[in-house]
């Protein structure tokens, strides 16, 4: 399945300024694994040792908050994932 991922600009230094990318995957976890395969510098930032998204980030599937954070949730062709950093500055 071809899925689009859009990541926050704060990651741009780790992805050569690429913020929209395509991954080939069947589940959310596979999407993230393919993302960090393409951009290895993101791996330590985004994923813990079990390949789960770290708590400092949120994930949205087709614009909707993915909660509970089910990493096995299937994705389909044309889906879009947004990975955003939880910001708290004021």
């Amino acid at each position, binding site marked *: 399945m071809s899925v689009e991922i859009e990541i*926050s*600009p*704060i990651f741009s230094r780790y992805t050569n300024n690429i*913020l929209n990318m395509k991954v080939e995957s069947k589940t959310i976890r596979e999407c993230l694994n393919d993302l960090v395969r393409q951009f290895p510098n993101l791996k330590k930032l985004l994923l813990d040792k079990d390949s789960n998204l770290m*708590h*400092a980030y*949120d994930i*949205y599937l087709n*614009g*909707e*908050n993915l*909660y509970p954070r089910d990493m096995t949730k299937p994705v389909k062709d044309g889906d879009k994932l*947004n990975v*955003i*950093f*939880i*910001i*708290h*500055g*004021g």
Partner: protein
Amino acid sequence: MLTAKELERYDRQIMIYGFGKEGQEKLKKARVFIAGAGGLGSPVTIYLAAAGIGTIRIADHDRVELSNLNRQVLHWEENLGGRKVDSAAAKLGKFNTGIKVETIADTITEANISQLVADSDLIVDAMDNLPTRYLLNRAAIKKGIPFFHGAVYGFEGRAMTVIPGKSACLNCLYHGATVPKEKFPVIGVTPAVIGCIQATEVIKYLVGLGELLTNRLLNYDALRMKFTEFKINRDPNCEHCSNTSNRVSKQ
């Protein structure tokens, strides 16, 4: 009742369809609690003062530092070392002598938050850390008053409006997640945009106009000059808002 001076001062907004003198009177009667007089708190308070909000209550325990001045436009070089709430009150008091500005220089804690918010009609979240934001969210839910969230980082910002009992709250959004409090990058124009969005939401809520930013997280990406909305669902098991049996709604 609006005075002749107020009718003249607010003439252009009273002209807005649906706003009218009634809307202006609602703003005059309103009491708003603003947590934070920094990057977000500056534009929020300035524009709420400009709009004629009757009572603005600002809480911030910090003092003005040189590194604040790239974004915290309420504070000037002459205020360095002084309390932010004093600096804010001095500017707002000169800007609009027809409103009341109350200041609180205490740290917001679980123990004092209810007393600090007191009988305010709403809470504006202009803080710089998640733990206090969660405290404010809980306090708003407990009091049954709206909560206007905003946050910034670099050229990015986010905003969401919470109507207790009706829409997703901050904890439905972040589920108790925390990130370490640390020095964060930011340029002044980012909180200017997000703070103005928060102030807009406050005005809309008080006057009763338009559609609020509820169940939606607005994401502002200034580098790509792009706004994105994410749908946020209420969490039926939310530790903050799922049990509403003890809540007393003002609305």
